[in-house]
């Protein structure tokens, strides 16, 4: 039944947006972090999404129908790290300051991350609505048995 695989498509969207949100809050939390295990200041991370036909094939074992119009899910293709030069701020006396008194701070723009966070949360909500609409349809077909 193709409606059940629509559920896994929406679930893949929710999980992708959740991963994005995790990285965005990590960016916000670390917007002033000057020390990391890799050395140097924190670097902003972001996700790249790609469509993923396999996410829809959760129930493919039970389906023999042709996959002509199978829905495509989404997954995180990769996590990219910002390679831009860190932002230099003049803070003499800071333990991580260089000889001239400049400290390398992460190049994180809170406005950019907040806007992305809003987008991720809206998209998550849209996927939840899709799941509840599809769930309604499944319930309606089950009601035919009564």
């Amino acid at each position, binding site marked *: 039944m193709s409606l059940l695989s629509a559920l896994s498509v929406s679930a893949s969207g929710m999980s992708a947006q959740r991963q994005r949100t995790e990285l965005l809050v990590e960016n916000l939390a670390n917007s002033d972090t000057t020390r990391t295990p890799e050395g140097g200041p924190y670097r902003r991370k972001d996700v790249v999404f790609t*469509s993923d036909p396999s996410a829809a094939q959760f129930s493919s074992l039970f389906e023999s129908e042709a996959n*002509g119009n199978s829905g495509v899910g989404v997954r995180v293709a990769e996590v990219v790290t910002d390679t831009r030069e860190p932002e230099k701020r003049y803070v003499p006396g800071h333990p991580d300051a260089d000889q001239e008194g400049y400290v390398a701070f992460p190049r994180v723009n809170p406005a950019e991350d907040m806007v992305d966070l809003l987008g991720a949360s809206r*998209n998550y909500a849209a996927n939840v609505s899709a799941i509840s609409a599809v769930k309604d349809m499944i319930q309606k077909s089950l009601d035919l048995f009564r």
Partner: protein
Amino acid sequence: MFQGVAGNFERYMSLLSARQKLVASNIANADTPGYRTQDIDFRAEFESAVDGESPATVEPKDLPAKPDGNNVNLDREARLLAENALRFSIASSFARADLSTIRTALQEGKTS
């Protein structure tokens, strides 16, 4: 006899399911670079539907693409999501009414 009652509803409902699935993928991929909106030509598929053949996917025209090549319009998808669910609900009510007519006929035949 049952074919005439249930056949059309079944085709209508399975087309709606197929379309709802595409809407779900469009919503899931609303932020995927390069993803193009997918849909089915509902009227054409309903009129020409062959049993057991899955409907062809088409890309709707006139959807402006964002700079990353993605052309998903969430408002359009939200409308389709609601519309499909409503249509499905209507069709299932009709199908249920028809089935209950047949059931009544069977029951009456049994008692007399």
